[in-house]
């Protein structure tokens, strides 16, 4: 089922959580709502579910205006960050809850419920835990049970609010892969909220990047990563070194130094981003590139991360460079050594803070 939100606006007092937002979620896709905390992503999810009322705007489910439909009639499945399992019920009773709450006329028989619950527990691979209570399960197991419970009522949409947020790193990775496989089996339109860009890029068909209640960019994981539309998106998707300067003939002038871009750059004040693995260190104090000084060299497995401090015109700024541990520089750089930085690839945006003024 497709979901459309149109001109949704929602404020909590002075804080604008959703700023006139319009979005389409096509049928059958797994979409990630990605953004920093407080960007409105959870609020949007709750508005779609009906748990939160928007101040204005419409939510369309399958083309029908659902704005005034009660939560229980929207047929959505909702998975909460902290699971929200019914703590006084066994796993079986938790999963059976939605079926047992149906009006008498359409409620399945107890035998049918039993069959269905076991089927769902097998789907989440936890059939053997049917008689346990939530408190006896691990976080990852609880979240899988929460998912089985949400699926029991055959929802038309599945909404997941930071589903892996409360889990430790290893379990989170496993569950991500598992959720992706599950979605490939069920093809139910799903939206999940996350602040973890790696999670969004790994799991989703499509990523919606949000900031300050607005959509910054929508696209496939590859698109948003490789062609970020705004400085915010670039900065949010992975580590980045940030340079501010004036566009000039050879690239971007930052004081007397020049960041060579190898491409034509729009005029005026610009912000440039360079990923840490796309920045080269040149072992010379003078010459081309951005002046910097090595402040720390860290070896993290296959990667060596070099932390640098800016010199001269970029004094006070920090830069990160990542090298393969086998790179000749990785072992030989000395703390305090003056170097120059040259980018292999640069992404340039007009500076939004000064663009408006010009």
């Amino acid at each position: 089922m497709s979901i459309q939100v149109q001109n949704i606006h929602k404020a909590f007092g002075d804080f604008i959580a959703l700023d006139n937002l319009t979005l389409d979620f096509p049928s059958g896709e797994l979409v990630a709502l990605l953004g920093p905390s407080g960007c409105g992503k959870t609020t949007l999810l709750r508005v779609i579910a009906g748990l939160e009322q928007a101040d204005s705007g419409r939510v369309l489910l399958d083309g029908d205006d659902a704005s005034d439909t009660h939560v229980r009639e929207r047929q959505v499945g909702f998975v909460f960050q902290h699971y929200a399992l019914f703590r006084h019920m066994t796993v079986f009773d938790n999963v059976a809850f939605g079926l047992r709450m149906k009006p008498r006329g359409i409620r399945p028989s107890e035998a049918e419920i039993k069959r269905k619950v076991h089927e769902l527990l097998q789907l989440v691979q936890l059939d053997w835990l049917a008689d346990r209570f939530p408190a006896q399960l691990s976080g990852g197991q609880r979240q899988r049970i929460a998912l089985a419970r949400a699926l029991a009522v055959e929802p038309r949409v599945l909404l997941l609010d930071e589903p892996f947020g409360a889990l430790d790193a290893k379990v989170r990775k496993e569950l991500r892969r598992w959720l992706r496989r599950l979605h490939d089996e069920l093809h139910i339109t799903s939206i999940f909220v996350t602040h973890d860009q790696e999670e969004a890029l790994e799991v989703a068909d499509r990523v919606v990047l949000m900031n300050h209640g607005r959509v910054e960019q929508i696209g496939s994981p590859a698109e948003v990563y490789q062609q970020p539309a705004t400085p915010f998106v670039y900065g949010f998707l992975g580590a980045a070194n940030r340079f501010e300067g004036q566009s000039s003939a050879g690239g971007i002038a930052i004081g007397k130094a020049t960041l060579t871009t190898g491409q034509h750059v729009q005029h005026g004040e610009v912000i440039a981003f360079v990923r840490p693995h796309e920045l080269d260190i040149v072992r010379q104090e003078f010459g081309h590139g951005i002046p910097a000084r090595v402040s720390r060299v860290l070896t993290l497995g296959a990667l060596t991360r070099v932390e640098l401090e800016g010199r001269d015109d970029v004094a006070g700024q920090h830069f990160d460079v990542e090298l393969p541990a086998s790179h000749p520089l990785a072992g030989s750089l000395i703390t305090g050594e003056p170097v120059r930085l040259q980018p292999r690839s640069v992404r340039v945006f007009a500076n939004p803070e000064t663009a408006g003024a010009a």
Partner: protein
Amino acid sequence: MAAITANLYAQHDRAALLENRQATREARWVKVTILGAALTFFAIFLLLPLAVVFVEALAKGWHTYLDALVEPDALSAVTLTLLAALISVPLNLVFGVAAAWAITRFDFRGKQLLITLIDLPFSVSPVVAGLIYVLVFSSHGWIGPWLLEHDIKVIFAVPGIVLATVFVTVPFVARELIPLLQAQGREEEEAAVVLGARGWQVFWHVTLPNVRWALLYGVILSNARAMGEFGAVSVVSGHIRGETNTLPLHVEILYNEYQFAAAFAVASLLALLALVTLAVKSWIEWRAAQAHD
């Protein structure tokens, strides 16, 4: 309160751990002094008076004891006490759950006022509570004349006693539930609604089971207060023997008439009631702790 005691039970293991470790163990004289002071206080001010009640009650033998209990006025007092509790406890149960639910789940104007009002019976002297009803319902009171015309008796009659009892027991259930409901949050209820549960289904299947031990605890405390209330009931009762005397009032009358054995015999009934309440309360706390783990 139930949640706090549940926590106490959980801490028991940790306390044992501290005690067993040389590094964290306190000096012997510290333990003996603190424990000794607490136990001495407990013995002199609680255990001894309780024992005196039973000793005095049985001072003139079993016969006098039983006679004092089966005497018609005593039986009437028992009946009235039970009646007052039987009406006020369910009333407060319904009111307490409704108020706690409203306060923790909805935002509305006057919420803070409602919370303050619930606590009012705790802060107002019971005598004042009784007087309020006298001022409103007595023949010289605000609606007294109207009641008189319609031949309805409130003050110096059973309805007044029930009203006073309801007033003093109002906070118990709500006070137990509010912190627990606040701590548990709305998520489970939201999950239930998304799964298609209707309002009363959410309440019955999700909210209520989660607070059942706190609720029972509130009811027990409310019941203990209802049966033991003296001040407020004393003001509205009029002390008519065999008609408007509750157990505590009956004890006072007997005592003032120098019928010490009888007074203590009836008092022992109240004391027994307190012991049963304590036992049930401990059991509930133990169960709540189990539910907590």
